[in-house]
């Protein structure tokens, strides 16, 4: 008797804990979205979701639960871990960026927009291209952005300078943009930041009209196996021009809080996603005028422009509710509100000649630059789908710094970078290509 009691007490104690549970994710009527929108962008996203729940959701008995999971790569980490361990805990939709594409392309739990029967005919063509794979369109573009050159317009105007068109132009004006105090300490840099994968997709991709970092068209046609930026000399070309810029002494090689430095006036320019526009402007808070311009070209032959970045909605559930929610997210009204509040480019082409959107662009010229830049770009210039994206991101920065700061030989840096990417491709192929 007593033993039974003891056992029961002990087990009850242990298991009672297990009963406190947050509940499953796929109850009908609830659509969960994991997202990476924080700050002003996060607030805009929450408002869009709240609006859905109040209107369309209420009519159709659907509640969207949006869950912030940290940065885009945190969302991917969570999705992958969950899919491997307990697939029933996957959300219905996850907002991911290009770093996720390769994993998603090779996953068996992804539901393609085609399989959901979604109409994607009105979606921005270059956004479609950015997510097109051997399996077809992987996800529904939602927040399209591109790399953008941010500059302190007040400063540029006072020096009667225009934003540079090429890196060589930039090198020429960098000493004018920088500033030193009497002791020789730099108080304002011409540029702050160290290019990584995202920037290099543009700097390399634009070369000779169109270039790829790796084969299979940057992995869009299939799992990439071979590095191209080494043998095609594109990375080398970039490094030559970038080193010249850094040699002016007015480039700050920081990798954190760059927009804070920009807002504080400690750097005259920076490269950042167009999606940061509203956040940057609120950080600057009117202390100077923020200008945006096309990303400087590596050289005059680098005419390819920039690729579409940002994120897309990846679906993991075939339910009709999910389709309704996705349809809502790319509708004209939502995309207009989203673009106005964030700086993302609307992915719904129906908006491009809507008077409301045109009026918005007219009154906010900084927001129009990203659209113009995208229109001027080759849509085949795409983001590279690389495995171990996080590690390679750092490897690129490391090699660039090795060249600009430590005087590492450019060819050696290119060879090391090539080896690092090749190893990541080989590892990934060894672990994933026999699966299907």
């Amino acid at each position, binding site marked *: 008797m*007593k033993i039974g*009691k*003891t056992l029961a*007490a*002990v087990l009850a*104690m*242990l298991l009672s*804990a*297990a*009963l*406190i*549970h*947050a509940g499953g*994710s796929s109850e009908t009527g609830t659509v969960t979205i*994991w997202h990476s929108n*924080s*700050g*002003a962008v*996060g607030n805009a996203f929450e408002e869009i979701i709240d609006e859905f729940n109040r209107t369309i959701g209420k009519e159709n008995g659907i509640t969207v*639960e949006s*869950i*912030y*999971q*940290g940065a885009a790569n945190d969302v991917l980490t*969570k999705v992958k*871990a*969950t899919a*491997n*361990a*307990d697939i*029933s*805990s996957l959300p219905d939709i996850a907002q991911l960026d290009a770093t996720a594409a390769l994993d998603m392309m090779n996953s068996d739990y992804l539901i393609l927009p085609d399989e959901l029967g979604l109409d994607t005919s009105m979606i921005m063509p270059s956004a479609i291209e950015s997510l097109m794979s051997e399996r077809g369109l992987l996800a529904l573009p939602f927040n399209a952005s591109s790399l953008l050159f941010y500059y302190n317009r007040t400063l540029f105007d006072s020096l009667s300078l225009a934003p540079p068109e090429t890196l060589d132009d930039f090198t020429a004006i960098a000493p004018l943009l920088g500033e030193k105090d009497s002791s020789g300490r730099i*108080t304002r840099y011409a540029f702050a930041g160290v290019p990584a994968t995202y920037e290099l997709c543009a700097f390399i991709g634009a070369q000779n009209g169109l270039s790829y970092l790796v084969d299979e068209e940057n992995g869009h046609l299939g799992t990439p196996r071979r590095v191209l930026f080494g043998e095609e000399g594109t990375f080398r070309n970039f490094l030559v021009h970038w080193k010249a810029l850094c040699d002016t002494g007015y480039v700050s090689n920081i990798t954190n809080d760059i*927009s*804070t430095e920009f*807002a*504080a*006036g*400690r750097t005259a320019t920076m490269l950042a996603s167009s999606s940061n526009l509203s*956040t940057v402007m*609120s*950080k600057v*808070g009117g202390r100077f005028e923020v200008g945006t311009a096309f990303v400087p070209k590596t050289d005059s032959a680098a005419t390819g422009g920039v690729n579409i970045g940002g994120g897309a909605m990846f679906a993991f559930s075939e339910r009709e509710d999910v389709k309704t929610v996705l349809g809502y997210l790319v509708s004209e009204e939502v995309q207009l509100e989203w673009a106005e509040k964030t700086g993302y480019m609307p992915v719904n082409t129906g908006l491009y000649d809507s008077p409301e959107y045109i009026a918005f662009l007219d009154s906010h010229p900084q927001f129009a630059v990203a659209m113009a830049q995208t229109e001027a770009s080759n849509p085949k210039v795409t983001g590279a789908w690389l495995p171990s994206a996080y590690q390679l991101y750092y490897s690129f920065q490391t090699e660039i710094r090795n060249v600009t700061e430590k005087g590492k030989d450019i060819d050696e840096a290119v060879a090391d970078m090539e080896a690092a990417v090749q190893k990541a491709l080989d590892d990934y192929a060894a672990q994933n290509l026999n699966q299907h």
Partner: protein
Amino acid sequence: MARIIRTIIIALLAAIMLFPLLYAFSASFFPPEDFTASEARFLPSHISFRGYALALGHRYFGRYMLNSFITALMSATLRTAVSVLAAFAFTHLSFRGKRIILTALLATLFIPPDAMLYENYTAIARMGLLDSYAGIVLPSIFSASAMLLTMGSYAAADRDIYDAARMDGTGDLGYIARMLVPLAAPVSITVFIQAFISSFNSYLWPLLVTVRPRMRTIQIGIAMLGFAEEGEYGAQFAAIIIMTAPFLLLLLAARRLIMKAISGGIS
């Protein structure tokens, strides 16, 4: 002379140890522009309560705190209870396989939980315990060092009392609850406080096993409030002060007890 030097060194050390707290406190009253001032500030240009308003108005801040308390409490209580039961069995009962079981349990000391992160995550997920208090707490309940500690104090317990209690017809659980635990209370308090602190402070594990904001603990919540991304560093510091203040007060009020509990653990 030696006294003055000693006092100076102590004051210097104290200043260093206090600096992050003081800076966080001061920065929680910074208006936003103070964070981008070209000369770093220590004191706010003017006192701004914007940070506190934002932090307190945050949708999940209170919930994060509550979750941290609940999980830390659960973890500490269960670890104490599990340690008491095991320690009692090892010190008061004889049974076959005692040595083997004890050796096996103590061998877990060699297995750092951080290195088991992925496998434990998979196990918890497959148990369907993602996003539950149980998922946050379960892997941290058993601790060989807590068990060892409790055993050390129970081994000294007077066996005559145990035999007398059994003669009286008191069951083992009754003996544990009425005699053993009260007699060796310091060790249980030590185990409890140590478990509470370590659970409250854990970061990686709750980050992995929680999915929804309403299940997140303050440790991960505070890094996910989203204030820093907006340039609202003041709100971030305000949130830190709000979450730290109660602990600081508790710590100062119960300083002797906590110091005793911690030093009682390892000696």
